[in-house]
């Protein structure tokens, strides 16, 4: 006899409680009066605070009408009179919507409505019974927070208007609903005591039995609340444990599934909502990041900015996060991260009179090892970042509250909270946080952030009401609502029990973000160095009295670059219009910096602090070489440190190279394969072969990471590979007295890949230029190098020193780091010899057991179905060398490869020794010249011989005067001096 599955068809008691809870919620509104005068103008935002309208005049908007358009903003108005029956009561405006609305009544900002909240209190903000509503509403297909299941059902570009109302809430029902939200969450969560959950189920049933749901009356509701208080809240037999700090926060992506122009309103709505909650709940504190977002409030909503300043002064509204935006912390250079702090802190000091002592980066995709000293020297004591605890796909990050030791040995207090930065303050979320907290023995609290986010929104009334009830629940951890500063100061300061993490904070996920959107990465690298050149040239001209330093212009442009380093812009995890905005910004920055640099004359200025001795491409319209779309020639410029000189076109013959089965140069005998890969390189100087396996071998791998397409690369990406056809075998295409070029053309069904390999008479470097028409989907292009080097370490440039990464796969930690971020170069060396690969805008490196691969291009489809499609041109240089990377001077060679000569007759009379000049600029106060120097070879030394100077922190605040500074390995130093009269700060 077949088994018959018994399906229980009758209702369990818990389900009956849920049903009655639903009935109860229908009575939250005591009374509603529909507003019938809504008018709407549909529009689309084209720039910050600028809109193009679909219609000249507003149209009536009635309940049941369709409203909103794709990528649409709507301007909605209405007029209403408060009914007589609402006199003396707290009146609310209620409107259920998937959109995000900023609501003004009678000219005053009264609050915000969005998928997470459907009504706002009007009474405290109006002084008339006659109301005029002005609503700016932005709708999009991805609601603020997909974690809120109610918001999922209403997503879509076109919405049905469900009507707007004046309403009065039944306080007793609302209060009982909050009690039940709290208790049902506990009853349904298996992370709480089972006996207590059983008690809740029994007593909630008893409480609801006191209510006649056919005729709900206030007396019954109050009796039910009293019953719950007496039989559940006052029952202290069931103990809990733990200590959780609750910090209110809303994560705001400046661009993601929306453009930067939309973040102005998204931020304002968030700020407004939180300020209105502060009015209602005086104990409520809220932490808000990113100086840039404060700037937009100041610029576009000055009347609210004044109120915001008051709330900051009172301590309710708390600026956190010293940086200008929340940038990606893998790809930006050290100087960019310093500028994030400099411009962030300068803004906070100027506007609010405070120095923010936290770096608040809940959502960034891993954190570079160079950060601790940058933060500490920018006035930051505490670092907060969530993702390593909750996103790691392989290993559990072992700490939550700890000390992070940076590349130079700087220590900073660090918090990686155990759970997500977006929570809605449910008891089970608090309990899960405590359960996951790994540093209980340190005696510290664990940090729980609460508030909806990604697109802002933040805390709701419900979250605060629930929080106010937490103390009544005996099984919950002890909670305390605090500011971020209070949490950090109370738990970290002088805490001797904190463990230490010495190394980068690598995120074991989102490894594709080092590569996705190649053009953005290329622009970022190029502009970082162009800013450097522009500032140095501007200082030179200022010193010579030729021109004023364009401080404001440079600052504005720099801020634009920093905004585009936001952690969903630079990593490439955004929709198509965000990419267009970024490229448009980059092009504008590029043009404007060119104007500042203003190349002219016949001399070339070397902005590097050492003599250039590497082969360099010089643009020249009469040149016969074509490189990256520009004509020119190669030469070794031989221009001294910070000096300028003329460069002559070399006119030697091309008899330095012999092409046959092997190609002979002064340095090498090279055997090429038809596809541009190199079979063998014999080094004539070092008398050794360099290659053991694939070398300069292009691979197009299948790349199917899944939903997080733009973000992730899976560890099995090498399993399947696209076949590459050889359309043109490698052949000599050009030669002169300095260089010879070999070309091959490869193809897939959809893409063409021209590879040009250049050899040089006077350089060990082998440059590879790639010109690619890329039309793939779900593919990852990498170039593989398997040199004959016995090493177990990959040395990677971080932009301010190098990091050694283990290549062995013995442990899960090593296995998880199969794709890492580097900057200008990586290196494989054994005692005496090594091979470096230097790039000019690539960041991803794959670590194999016996090989490494430079990630070149991806072809992802989410969030941007058009990502990386089109033409790409990029170069890298293979550099076999004697000794290790440091002794071979690879970092300097990489600087020469990335920092262009400037056509200008300039010079600087500085000698900073072996320190790299990160930046030379006018101080933000316009009084002094600031030089930022970094030690990048892991060597200590003394800076002297430049007269007296003032050591400052990275925010340019003076520390002390000296004429000698003993620096540590990998230290970054900022000094100030006055060039004209040598007077110090």
């Amino acid at each position, binding site marked *: 006899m077949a088994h018959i599955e018994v399906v229980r068809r009758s209702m369990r008691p818990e389900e009956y409680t849920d049903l009655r809870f639903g009935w109860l919620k229908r009575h939250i509104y005591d009374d509603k009066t529909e507003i019938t005068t809504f008018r709407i103008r549909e529009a689309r935002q084209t720039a910050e605070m600028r809109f193009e309208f679909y219609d000249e005049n507003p149209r009536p908007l009635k309940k049941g009408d369709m409203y909103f358009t794709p*990528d649409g903003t709507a301007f909605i108005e209405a007029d209403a009179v408060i009914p007589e029956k609402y006199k003396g009561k707290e009146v609310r405006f209620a409107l259920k919507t998937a959109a995000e609305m900023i609501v003004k009544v009678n000219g005053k900002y009264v609050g915000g409505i969005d998928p997470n909240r459907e009504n706002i209190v009007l009474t405290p903000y109006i002084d008339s019974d006659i109301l005029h509503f002005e609503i700016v509403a932005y709708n999009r297909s*991805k609601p603020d927070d997909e974690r809120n299941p109610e918001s999922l059902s209403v997503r879509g570009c*076109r919405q049905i208007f469900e009507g707007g109302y004046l309403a009065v809430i039944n306080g007793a029902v609302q209060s009982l609903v909050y009690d039940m939200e709290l208790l049902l969450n506990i009853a349904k969560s298996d992370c709480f005591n089972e006996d207590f959950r059983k008690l809740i189920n029994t007593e909630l049933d008893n409480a609801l039995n006191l209510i006649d749901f056919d005729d709900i009356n206030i007396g019954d509701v109050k009796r039910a609340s009293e019953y719950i208080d007496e039989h559940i809240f006052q029952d202290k037999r069931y103990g809990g444990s733990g200590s959780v700090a609750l910090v209110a926060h809303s994560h705001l992506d400046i661009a993601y599934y929306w453009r930067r122009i939309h973040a102005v309103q998204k931020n304002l709505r968030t700020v407004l909502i939180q300020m209105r909650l502060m009015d209602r709940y005086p104990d409520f504190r809220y932490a808000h990041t990113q100086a840039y977002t404060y700037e937009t409030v100041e610029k576009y909503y000055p009347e609210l900015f004044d109120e915001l300043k008051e709330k900051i002064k009172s301590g309710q509204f708390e600026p956190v996060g010293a940086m200008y935006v929340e940038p990606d912390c893998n790809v930006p250079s050290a100087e960019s991260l310093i500028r994030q702090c400099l411009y962030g802190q300068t803004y906070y000091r100027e506007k609010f009179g405070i120095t923010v002592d936290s770096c608040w980066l809940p959502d960034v995709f891993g954190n570079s090892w160079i950060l601790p000293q940058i933060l500490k020297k920018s006035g930051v004591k505490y670092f907060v970042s969530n993702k390593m605890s909750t996103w790691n796909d392989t290993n559990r990050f072992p700490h939550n509250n700890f000390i992070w030791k940076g590349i130079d040995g700087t220590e900073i207090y660090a918090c990686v909270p155990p759970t997500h930065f977006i929570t809605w303050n449910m008891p089970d979320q608090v309990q899960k946080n405590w359960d996951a907290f790994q540093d209980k023995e340190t005696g510290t609290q664990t940090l729980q952030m609460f508030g909806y986010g990604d697109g802002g929104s933040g805390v709701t009334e419900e979250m605060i009401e629930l929080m106010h009830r937490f103390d009544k629940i005996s099984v919950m951890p002890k909670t305390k609502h605090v500011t971020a500063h209070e949490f950090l100061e109370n738990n970290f300061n002088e805490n001797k029990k904190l463990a230490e993490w010495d190394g980068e904070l690598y995120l074991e996920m989102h490894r594709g973000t080092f590569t996705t959107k190649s053009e953005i990465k290329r622009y970022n690298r190029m502009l970082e160095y162009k800013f450097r050149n522009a500032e140095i040239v501007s200082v030179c001209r200022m010193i010579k009295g030729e021109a004023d330093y364009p401080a404001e212009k440079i600052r504005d442009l720099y801020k634009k670059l920093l905004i585009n380093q936001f952690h969903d812009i630079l990593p490439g995890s955004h*929709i198509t219009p965000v990419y267009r905005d970024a490229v448009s910004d980059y092009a504008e920055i590029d043009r404007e910096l060119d104007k500042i640099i203003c190349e002219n004359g016949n001399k070339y200025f070397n902005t590097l602090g050492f003599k250039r001795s590497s082969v360099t491409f010089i643009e020249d319209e009469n040149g016969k070489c074509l490189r990256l779309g520009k004509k020119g020639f190669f030469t070794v410029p031989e221009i001294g440190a910070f000096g300028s000189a003329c460069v002559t076109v070399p006119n030697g013959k091309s008899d330095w190279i012999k092409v046959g089965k092997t190609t002979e140069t002064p340095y090498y005998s090279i055997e090429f394969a038809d596809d541009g890969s190199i079979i063998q390189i014999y080094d004539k100087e070092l008398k050794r072969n360099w290659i053991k396996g694939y070398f300069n071998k292009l691979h197009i791998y299948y790349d199917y990471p*899944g*939903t997080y397409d733009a973000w992730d690369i899976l560890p099995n990406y090498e399993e399947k590979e696209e076949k590459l056809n050889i359309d043109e075998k490698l052949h000599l295409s050009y030669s002169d007295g300095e260089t010879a070029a070999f070309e091959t053309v490869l193809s897939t069904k959809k893409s063409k890949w021209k590879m040009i390999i250049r050899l040089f008479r006077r350089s060990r470097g082998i440059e590879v230029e790639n010109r690619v028409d890329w039309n793939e989907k779900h593919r990852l292009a990498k170039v593989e190098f398997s040199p004959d080097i016995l090493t177990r370490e990959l040395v990677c440039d971080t932009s301010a020193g190098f990091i050694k990464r283990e290549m062995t796969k013995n442990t899960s930690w090593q296995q998880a780091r199969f794709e890492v971020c580097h900057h200008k170069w990586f290196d494989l060396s054994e005692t005496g010899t090594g091979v470096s690969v230097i790039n000019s805008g690539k960041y991803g490196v794959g670590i194999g057991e016996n090989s490494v691969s430079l990630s070149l291009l991806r072809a992802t*489809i*989410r969030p941007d*179905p058009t990502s990386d499609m089109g033409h790409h041109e990029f170069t890298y240089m293979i550099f076999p060398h004697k000794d290790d990377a440091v002794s071979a001077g690879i970092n300097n060679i990489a600087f020469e490869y990335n920092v262009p000569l400037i056509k200008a007759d300039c010079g600087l009379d500085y000698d900073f020794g072996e320190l790299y000049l990160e930046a030379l600029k006018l101080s933000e106060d316009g009084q002094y010249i600031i030089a930022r120097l970094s030690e990048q070879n892991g060597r200590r030394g003394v800076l002297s011989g430049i007269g007296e100077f003032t050591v400052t922190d990275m925010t340019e605040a003076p520390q002390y005067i000296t004429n000698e500074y003993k620096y540590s390995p990998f230290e970054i130093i900022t000094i100030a001096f006055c060039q004209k009269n040598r007077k110090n700060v």
Partner: protein
Amino acid sequence: MEQYINEIIRPKIQGDGGEITFCSQKDDTVTVIMQGECSKCLILDRCIAWIESMALKDLNKKVKINAVRKKPFFWDT
């Protein structure tokens, strides 16, 4: 119509994380491919009706849009 879809409609759809690609036109029926967020939108018909109304308003052309959803592999379950 192809130009209208590509230049006028497409940027708006992309602004919501979607993608629309003109595919073909036969008489008054225009076939488009919807990708990205549009490929799984529960209320795509409303958006398509809006595109038809915009074409009528802007081009004075009455067209029927035939929208073909092309879901990425990870949503194609």
